């Protein structure tokens, strides 16, 4: 199944477990699927020189990010035998312990989903113009750097 139009990957605030459950439930009519793989990025309460991250505030070049993700999605459908692919990223404030990234791939066979999920997450981290500002408990902040 190829997605032809550009989708909006952004959701305001944290991605909830209920949102993820709904997304899983929608795939139960697709009975050619044998394997799903779901990656979730969760905000860590990192300790930076004694200060604890309490939340990350996400901003993005939204239009460009959606375009870039569209291209990543098309290329990933070419590369792997996938039935479905869904990507959601938070905008705005996401508290530590909450989920900011939800990547979901499905295929008839498991081998494909393991490869595809890692590929997609690495592509998103490397190519999507999204920014995280780590907010500490004392309301100071630093800009997140991806490793």
């Amino acid at each position, binding site marked *: 199944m190829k997605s032809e139009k550009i989708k909006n990957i952004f959701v305001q605030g944290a991605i909830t477990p209920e949102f993820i459950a709904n997304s899983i439930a929608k795939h139960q009519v697709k009975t050619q699927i044998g394997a799903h793989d779901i990656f979730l990025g969760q905000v860590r309460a990192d300790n930076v020189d004694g200060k604890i991250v309490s939340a990350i505030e996400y901003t993005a*070049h939204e239009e460009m990010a959606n375009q870039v993700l569209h291209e990543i999605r098309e290329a990933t459908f070419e590369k792997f035998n996938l039935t479905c692919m869904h990507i959601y990223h938070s905008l705005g404030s996401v508290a530590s312990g909450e989920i900011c*990234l939800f990547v979901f791939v499905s295929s008839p066979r498991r081998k494909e989903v393991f490869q595809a999920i890692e590929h997609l997450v690495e592509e998103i981290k490397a190519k999507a113009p999204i920014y995280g500002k780590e907010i500490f408990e004392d309301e100071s902040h630093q800009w*997140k750097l991806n490793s």
Partner: protein
Amino acid sequence: MKVTVKFFGLLSEVANCDEEVFMTDGHTVTELLQVIYRKHPKLQLQQFQIAQGNKLVTDQIKLTGELIALLPPFSGG
């Protein structure tokens, strides 16, 4: 030419704004950058990529009048 420039991530703090309109007589991104640096010299110390419209471009590229974005290293996820 009138060009809208958006500053993302850390750069929005360095420029102290998210978006600004610049006038330039130049035709390339390099020439636009000279105008931007005149107003915000500290941006020269920053690492960033440039997007015109929704595409990453090199600084030799011709200005089209589309939105220019200054993008420091991404940190999504």
